[in-house]
């Protein structure tokens, strides 16, 4: 046998192995298929079809942060409604033309309510919403709506403020560090609120910011956190999606916070508290609306501590009791409306007045925030 023949034989062998595997796979499916067939006939007549709900995630469910928190919300929906709903999700959907394909596909599979959980899905989702009028769309963190599409968001800055109160109390150097993700108003607002919270207990506090220009890149987040610690920051905060900043603080003997979800497990010694987003209440409301036929598009929801969507949890044992009490006061004040984080006088870091005395910022002001408040060093990139 020549080498060439040997090679073709090998290829043939490999091909047939693949073919055999494929056949076996098919066989299994066929065997499995008939089994569940009789079930619906027995159960179906009395009950209505369950509502099919789909979620498109930007990151992996295992990011331990943003997407993880959304998936907890999805699980809350399943728990609340049981067999009245069927949920599914697609993770790591890029914020590109692929998003449109995935969302369209979700609708094609019979999902009546579709959640898109990142800003970048806004345009693709709107496009699909305009094509498929009888499917309901919910978009997180965007601003465009349609008759069958509405938006929802969380007041993450309330969590940032409460974390700031703890940071201001616990910092020994008086310098805080923030790892910023992408310089958009939402993130700038969080950095500012964090600083305002810290200043409420320590007016001399300073905040350094390092931008990584990405939402999720653990090695880069690590590098940014290292640079902040080397620059003198001893309490770190982040608006990125992984727990890398907390891990870096743990490794270098500094303190840090969890973000989006409870990150205590990642750095028990460094962890001061976690500013968490609880998407459950909103998802339960949205699905409930759809089930009861009350769902209406064209609206925007921005939920915070008041609605149970934002919280500061797992506060470290060594945080003094008066600080913990202060956090409880802030929460109570946000709930009953007696306390506002963004109430003047607030100056920007060039000394210009952002908010006059006793003026409370409205949502439009908060939504367009592009400058740092006093105490934050540097300039927002691109401004």
């Amino acid at each position: 046998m020549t080498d060439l023949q040997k090679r073709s034989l090998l290829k043939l062998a490999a091909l047939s192995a693949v073919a055999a595997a494929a056949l076996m796979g098919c066989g299994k499916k066929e065997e499995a298929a008939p089994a569940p067939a009789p079930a619906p006939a027995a159960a179906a007549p009395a009950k209505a079809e369950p509502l099919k709900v789909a979620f498109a995630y930007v990151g992996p469910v295992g990011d331990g942060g943003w997407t993880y928190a959304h998936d907890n919300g999805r699980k809350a929906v399943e728990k609340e409604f049981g067999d009245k709903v069927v949920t599914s999700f697609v993770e790591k959907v890029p914020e590109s033309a692929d998003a449109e394909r995935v969302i369209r596909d979700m609708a094609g599979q019979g999902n009546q309510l579709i959640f898109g959980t990142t800003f970048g899905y806004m345009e693709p989702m709107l496009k699909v919403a305009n094509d498929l009028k009888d499917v309901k769309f919910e978009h997180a963190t965007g601003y465009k709506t349609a008759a069958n599409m509405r938006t929802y968001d969380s007041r993450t800055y309330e969590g940032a403020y409460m974390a700031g109160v703890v940071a201001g109390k616990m910092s020994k150097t008086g310098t805080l560090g923030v790892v910023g993700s992408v310089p958009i108003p939402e993130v700038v607002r969080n950095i500012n609120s964090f600083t305002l919270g810290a200043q409420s207990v320590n007016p001399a506090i300073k905040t350094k910011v390092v931008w990584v220009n990405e939402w999720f890149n653990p090695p880069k987040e690590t590098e940014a956190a290292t640079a902040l610690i080397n620059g003198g920051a001893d309490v770190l905060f982040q608006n990125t999606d992984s727990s890398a900043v907390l891990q870096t603080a743990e490794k270098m003997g500094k303190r840090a916070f969890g973000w989006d979800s409870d990150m205590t497990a990642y750095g028990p010694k460094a962890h001061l508290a976690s500013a968490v987003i609880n998407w459950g209440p909103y998802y339960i409301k949205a699905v409930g609306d759809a089930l009861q036929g009350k769902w209406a598009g064209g609206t925007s929801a921005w939920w915070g501590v008041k609605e149970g969507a934002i919280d500061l949890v797992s506060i470290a044992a060594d945080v003094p009791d008066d600080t913990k009490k202060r956090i409880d006061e802030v929460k109570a004040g946000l709930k009953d409306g007696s306390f506002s984080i963004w109430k003047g006088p607030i100056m920007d870091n060039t000394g210009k007045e952002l908010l006059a005395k006793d003026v409370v910022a409205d949502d439009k002001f908060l939504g367009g925030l592009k400058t740092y408040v006093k105490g934050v060093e540097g300039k927002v990139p691109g401004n």
Partner: protein
Amino acid sequence: MDSTALLLAATLSAGTVLAIASLGLLINEKAGIVNLGAEGMMLCAAIAGFATVIHTGNTWLGFAAGMAAGAFLAAIFGGLVIWLNTNQYATGLALTLFGTGFSAFAGIKYVQEKLPEQTQYPIPYLADIPFFGPALFRQHPMVYVAMALTGGLIWFLYRTRAGLVLRSVGESPESAHALGYPVRRIRLAAVMAGGALCGLAGAYVSLVYTPLWVEGMIAGKGWIALALTTFATWRPARVLLGAYLFGGVTMLQFHLQGLGVNVPSQLLSMLPYLATIVVLVLISRNPLWIRVNMPSSIGKPFYPGA
């Protein structure tokens, strides 16, 4: 502490990941095989190492597991491209896709796990020298391993007979075959050694550099390592320098931001890549530098006796 010393320390630590992976890929390529699967191998090694340390508590076993995972995947890749002569580029890409997916799948239950306490490794006496102590001698041992590897590889490639044979397999496999060397087995060994080093780098990321496991956590370091071998024109010493240059510029951009230097951060994010391009341009001004060092059979399949 002196911030320059801290910047230097951070640079060494950031460059180590790239250096180890890139040295591994260099061994590969010196034998004439390009493995675009670096990112996938590093991811699989990262979760293999992480899981091992969670279960055994021993960091060194974790590194061993990472190397084994890398070598194993490289062996599959090697089998495909060396014996079945599949296209090296396509097979490497497939390996990256497979590794990305598989590591995510295997790592599901390790998300939110925490590694045991890290030991500090300051070198006695040397670590207390002002400036140089904090800059150079308080690193994880793997940082010195990368430097030792570079020296070892230079010695192996250019001073030993085995190194000469390896290079000849990459330059002219037909001649090596005619001289009676088992070209395919040598190539497989080189590919597996490369995989083991990529695995070591991957395990370093999940065990030391960013001690956690999350999906996709290598975040492109494997691709940078691949580019680095070319950028270093297949010279181990230049690989090490390039790794530190890239690590240094990356750290520098964050340090500049931390110091409040008023340059847009998006521009700073470009810096490492810009620096790479500038150096590449400088090097390519003399085409001989690249051509002399580039293994001439790189990426080409080898058919013994065909």
